């Protein structure tokens, strides 16, 4: 065995990229995005962009899309999250088809950096948000530039929805806003809205929605979840620094124990407090956000993500743990079953606890590391900071894997 400091992932050649594509087949749109990432890996670092430059791009996009006069004003940076650049602005216009009286719509431009902590398709995000309009509260989505024809990097434009991700009474300080405390007054209303939204999402007929960039897995087969595992295995192999035996063990276990799908649901993919906005006055959910990891799959994926300890906190009594800042775990599950009419299978819960811990570790240990190493994001210092949570995520993975292996007998 010859130790070397050469890192094939930092400047991957065509054979390396083709090898991973062949080993880990994924959905076509995801394959396109990941392949593009790898083909550009050895190229330029993320180029800082100014508000003025992005405003100019917006002008060009809108000039191509709109027939009537318009004005872009109030461009400003938005903060929060560790993934994408976001700019808020106001558009004075006549609406998409030019028939409305002149009015002002607050909007958001969401743009990928050169590489992100999660490399995803703005096109899939656009399709999913558009498909969900009328089903659950989502921002109206207007345009996507997945091929970066107008913007420096892939981008999406949608309506700015009023609301807050966490109430001003919650003073906790974390980089990505984990573990939100809604407080005893708002909590029941937020919980009811969350369960209602999740029920609409998980029971919707995904086949009836316009989602051309998504594959629809078949109930009775485990091909869909195996596809997702292949995607994350590929991402791990594209992005990791040193290998990690525990991650390999988990990957093999997830393949060997993949459950057949019993009901195809729309899965948010990062389903938790903090990824929806509320009206602070009444607790009503005004918009579900951050759809970049959405897939069609198994509802237990969202359930285990939402009930992760990372998003839990103690109630006011100091002894009752509230998952997702909402309810004790058993009550959370019961409320979900009542809202959806779907059952919760504990074997699948155990499976997706392993899956989610493994995915979170890939994001924070592998992709965050790789993007920062190449200087590929607008906030590499945030990404290296998030590497610090890697040990905790591996501890969570090890615990989940031990528990699941004991229950499954392997």
């Amino acid at each position, binding site marked *: *065995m*010859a*130790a070397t400091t050469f890192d094939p992932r930092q400047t991957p050649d065509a054979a390396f990229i083709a090898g991973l594509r062949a080993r880990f087949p994924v959905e076509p749109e995801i394959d396109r995005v990941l392949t593009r990432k790898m083909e550009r890996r050895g190229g330029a670092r993320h180029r800082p962009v100014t508000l003025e430059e992005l405003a100019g791009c917006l002008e060009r996009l809108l000039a191509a899309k709109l027939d009537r006069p318009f004005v872009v004003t109030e461009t400003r940076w938005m903060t929060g999250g560790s993934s994408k650049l976001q700019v808020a602005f106001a558009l004075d216009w006549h609406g998409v088809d030019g028939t409305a009286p002149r009015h002002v719509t607050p909007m958001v431009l969401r743009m990928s950096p050169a590489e992100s902590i999660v490399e995803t398709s703005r096109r899939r995000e656009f399709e999913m948000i558009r498909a969900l309009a009328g089903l659950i509260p989502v921002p109206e989505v207007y345009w996507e530039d997945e091929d970066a024809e107008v913007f420096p990097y892939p981008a999406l434009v949608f309506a700015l929805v009023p609301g807050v991700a966490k109430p001003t009474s919650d003073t906790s300080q974390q980089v990505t806003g984990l573990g939100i405390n809604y407080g005893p007054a708002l909590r029941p209303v937020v919980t009811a809205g969350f369960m209602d939204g999740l029920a609409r999402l998980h029971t919707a007929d995904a086949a009836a929605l316009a989602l051309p960039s998504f594959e629809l897995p078949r109930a009775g087969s485990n091909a869909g979840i195996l596809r997702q595992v292949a995607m994350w295995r590929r991402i791990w192999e594209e992005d990791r620094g*040193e290998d990690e*035996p525990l991650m390999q063990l988990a990957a093999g276990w997830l393949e*060997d124990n993949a459950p057949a799908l019993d009901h195809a649901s729309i899965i948010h993919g990062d389903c938790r407090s903090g990824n929806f906005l509320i009206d602070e006055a009444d607790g009503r959910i005004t918009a579900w956000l951050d759809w970049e990891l959405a897939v069609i799959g198994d509802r237990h994926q969202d359930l285990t993500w939402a009930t992760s300890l990372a998003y839990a906190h103690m109630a006011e009594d100091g002894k009752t743990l509230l998952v997702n800042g909402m309810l004790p775990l058993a009550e959370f599950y019961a409320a979900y079953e009542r809202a959806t009419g779907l059952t919760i299978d504990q074997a699948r819960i155990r499976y997706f606890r392993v899956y989610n811990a493994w995915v979170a570790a890939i994001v924070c240990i592998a992709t965050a590391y790789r993007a920062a190493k190449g200087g590929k994001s607008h906030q590499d*210092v945030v990404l290296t900071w998030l590497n610090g949570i890697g040990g905790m995520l*591996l501890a969570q993975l090890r615990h989940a*894997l031990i528990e699941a292996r004991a229950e499954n007998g392997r």
Partner: protein
Amino acid sequence: MIPEIDVQLAAVAKALADNVLPAVDPANPMAVEQLHLALATLGIVRQRLPDLHAYLRRDLTEAIALAATIGVDAGSAAAVLGSPESSPQRIEAEVRAVKEAITARIEAARGTADEAAVAAAVLNAADPAILRWRAWALPMGFEPDPAALPALDDLLQGKTTT
């Protein structure tokens, strides 16, 4: 060695905190947030740099032990570990090479009579390495119960596991 690396890092942190931070536009929240994180990162690097060599040596010691347990040839790893001339970079490269060999063994054991024993060894070996990572990253503030973690010095000496 003049200047010591620690003095250089301290000087950079002081320049950023005393002179750059007050000049940053408070209306640019990304700049403010990233400067604070940069300062915090510099502080952690200064705190941890003296222990880097010991950390990597412990990583390699445990990787060699796991390799032996599951029947993986660790190649030159023991020689690198035993040499006082091995740089941190050399040790780190050796850790990576041994871990690559271990993961290949895990994959090869799937579906064989060895699978359960290999899995048990990997899960067992992961415990001290994870604890060490968590203790190393403690100043970053992610741990919900910092007092529950063993001391980093003990973990670097291989003294403590859960």
